[in-house]
């Protein structure tokens, strides 16, 4: 009987087990999984950003874990102790009058302090304050403060890059989150048992090395700030490039902002990088481009002469010189030195073979300005919000002789400083257009890996024409507004620009933008740097020679020492 009883019991157990394990298998597996298996997101670390200081990467943007301290007012038992402790340990990070939030009714989450460091958070945790919690937050850290902030951009509350390099390279900087799906115990400790565990590691964002040199960047920002104080202007911008590589060594705008104190920014225009985002009429800087075009086409030389009467007629308009009195048969070098509009219009006429700016001369100018020097189009630099600008083609109705006569001295076209500096680099470096870049490479496991070179475009102008223009611009640099402190033995060149601004569709004479475009280096060598400077202000008449050139000289003189350039004996 016992055996039969046991057998019956066994059969019942077996039947029940069959029901549970076979028929209801999926249900119980699902229930078990939901209780035992947990999913953890493995957060990818946002890539950090470095500068490249004389061949050595230095950190510029880092990540740091900070904590938000919050309170559940319903659980706080000793309010005074909480207030005293937080004030003692994290007094500088608290919300204003944070004690009032401990009395909030109907809320279980009140933020008391933000951006509390890990050390502070650990000290607070040791106090075992009832009702106090901590949220870990990753934030960007800027050890250099506001340095290059408009180049960098920033990261918003959602973790996305906004403006600058952060926005343009957001995907690569962000990386890809990983996933840990695993059986856990009651304390959520992952256990290795279980065949369904998934561990996909996070792929961290790329660590980029910019071509910005932080020492040059800091010096440029200081030069701009000093100039604003000196001149009374409100805005100044500058770019420093290596003409042999197209790499941007510094790019700055003043006023600027501190990306770690975004809450203090009241004018969002400060986020803009005017060097790349603000097309303007470049003015007389472009005369170097017109001269380069004329020399490369063989229609002029530095010694070519023309009869200057301080005015020249193009169709139904008369173009005059700003600097008057250099009349008679003068050379193109003199025209460049004194920035004479009539000389540039003459070059444009000669491109067409004679006395007018015909379709041939316009086609040639467009080919050089747009196709070769690549003005009026985006360069593809690795920064967000780059503007294209405008160069009117001769095929358009507005691309007439008057337009192109104005373009020969930098009016009637909208370009960015980056485009002008890049095109000028190709003029002085032997005639190779190198697309501008802000990138030097990446850091991989702490080792610098240089970025691949961008495609180059040789033959923009001939090497011979490039050498000739370098000499002409060098002479122009010393012809007017002579620099006083630049040491001898170096090869410096530059051209002033004073651009009228347009208000309500009309040129305004008492509000001008001062610019200076130049290069520097050793004698008989390709220049080591190209600098472009712009200074302006609402209602301010800023001059290229009086206001922009001193900034150029300030930066250029410093660059000579920083790059350890060798003076000619």
């Amino acid at each position, binding site marked *: 009987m016992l055996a039969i009883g*046991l057998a019956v019991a*066994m059969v019942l157990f077996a039947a029940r087990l069959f029901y549970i394990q076979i028929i209801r298998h999926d249900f119980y597996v699902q229930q078990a999984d939901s209780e035992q298996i947990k999913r953890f997101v493995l957060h990818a670390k946002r890539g950090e950003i470095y500068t490249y200081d004389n061949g050595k990467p230095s*950190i510029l943007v*880092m990540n*740091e874990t900070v904590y938000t301290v919050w309170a559940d007012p319903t659980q706080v038992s000793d309010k005074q102790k909480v207030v005293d402790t937080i004030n003692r340990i994290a007094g500088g990070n608290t919300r204003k009058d944070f004690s009032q939030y401990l009395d909030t009714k109907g809320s279980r989450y009140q933020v008391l302090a933000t951006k509390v460091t890990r050390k502070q958070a650990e000290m607070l945790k040791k106090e075992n304050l009832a009702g106090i919690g901590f949220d870990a937050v990753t934030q960007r850290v800027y050890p250099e403060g506001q340095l290059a902030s408009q180049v960098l951009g920033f990261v918003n509350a959602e973790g996305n890059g906004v403006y600058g390099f952060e926005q343009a390279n957001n995907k690569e900087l962000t990386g890809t989150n990983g996933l840990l799906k695993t059986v856990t115990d009651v304390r959520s400790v992952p256990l290795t048992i279980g065949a369904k565990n998934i561990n996909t590691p996070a792929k961290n964002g790329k660590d980029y090395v910019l071509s910005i040199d932080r*020492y040059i960047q800091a010096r440029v920002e200081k030069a701009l700030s000093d100039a604003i104080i000196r001149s009374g202007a409100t805005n100044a911008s500058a770019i420093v490039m290596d003409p042999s590589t197209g790499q941007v060594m510094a790019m700055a705008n003043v006023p600027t902002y501190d990306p770690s104190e975004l809450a203090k920014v009241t004018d969002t225009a400060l986020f803009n990088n005017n060097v790349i985002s603000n097309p303007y009429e470049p003015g007389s800087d472009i005369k170097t481009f017109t001269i380069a075009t004329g020399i490369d086409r063989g229609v002029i030389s530095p010694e070519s002469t023309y009869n200057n009467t301080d005015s020249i007629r193009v169709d139904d308009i008369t173009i005059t010189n700003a600097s008057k009195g250099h009349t008679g048969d003068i050379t193109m070098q003199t025209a460049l030195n004194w920035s004479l509009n009539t000389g540039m219009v003459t070059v444009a006429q000669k491109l067409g073979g004679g006395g007018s700016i015909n379709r041939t001369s316009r086609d040639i100018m467009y080919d050089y300005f747009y196709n070769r020097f690549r003005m009026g189009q985006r360069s593809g630099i690795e920064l967000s919000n780059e503007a294209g600008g405008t160069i009117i083609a001769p095929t358009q109705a507005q691309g007439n002789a008057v337009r192109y006569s104005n373009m020969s001295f930098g009016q009637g076209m909208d370009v960015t400083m980056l485009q002008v500096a890049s095109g000028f680099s190709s003029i002085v470096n032997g005639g190779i257009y190198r697309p501008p870049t802000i990138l030097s490479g990446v850091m991989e496991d702490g080792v610098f890996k240089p970025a691949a070179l961008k495609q180059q475009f040789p033959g923009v102008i001939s090497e011979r024409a490039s050498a000739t223009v370098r000499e002409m611009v060098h002479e122009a640099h010393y012809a007017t507004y002579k620099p006083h402190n630049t040491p001898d033995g170096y090869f410096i060149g530059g051209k002033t620009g004073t651009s009228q601004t347009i208000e309500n569709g009309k040129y305004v004479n008492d509000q001008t933008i001062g610019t200076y475009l130049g290069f520097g280096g050793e004698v008989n060598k390709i220049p080591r740097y190209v600098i472009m400077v712009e200074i302006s202000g609402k209602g301010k008449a800023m001059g290229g020679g009086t206001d922009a050139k001193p900034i150029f000289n300030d930066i250029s003189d410093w660059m000579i020492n920083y790059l350890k350039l060798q003076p000619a004996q």
Partner: protein
Amino acid sequence: MSYTRTAQFNSRRANNWGRNQNTVVFASAVKLGPVTHTVLIALMITVLGLIYLTQAVRTSSYDYTASDIQDKIATLSDEKKDLEVDNARLMAIKEVQNSSVAKNMTAPTDVKYVSQ
């Protein structure tokens, strides 16, 4: 002195077994019934289950060790990062410019260049 046989041996010689073959077979007097068999099997299953659980618990204990080590690595990594941030802040240009060492520096008055 007399001996009592407690085991029973059945001679196989009677069955005409060949040379060099065992001719004695042991037959236990103890007989196991179905209940005993069932209990023994249940016991064996229990023992095997206990062995499995022992091993599983031992594996899990390694998980806790690994988890503790991971926590320590994370803490050390955080501390390292804090130090890196502090280092970067101390090495910032403005910080260096304002240092007492930099303030005591003087500009060179006579610079000579040599060809490399």
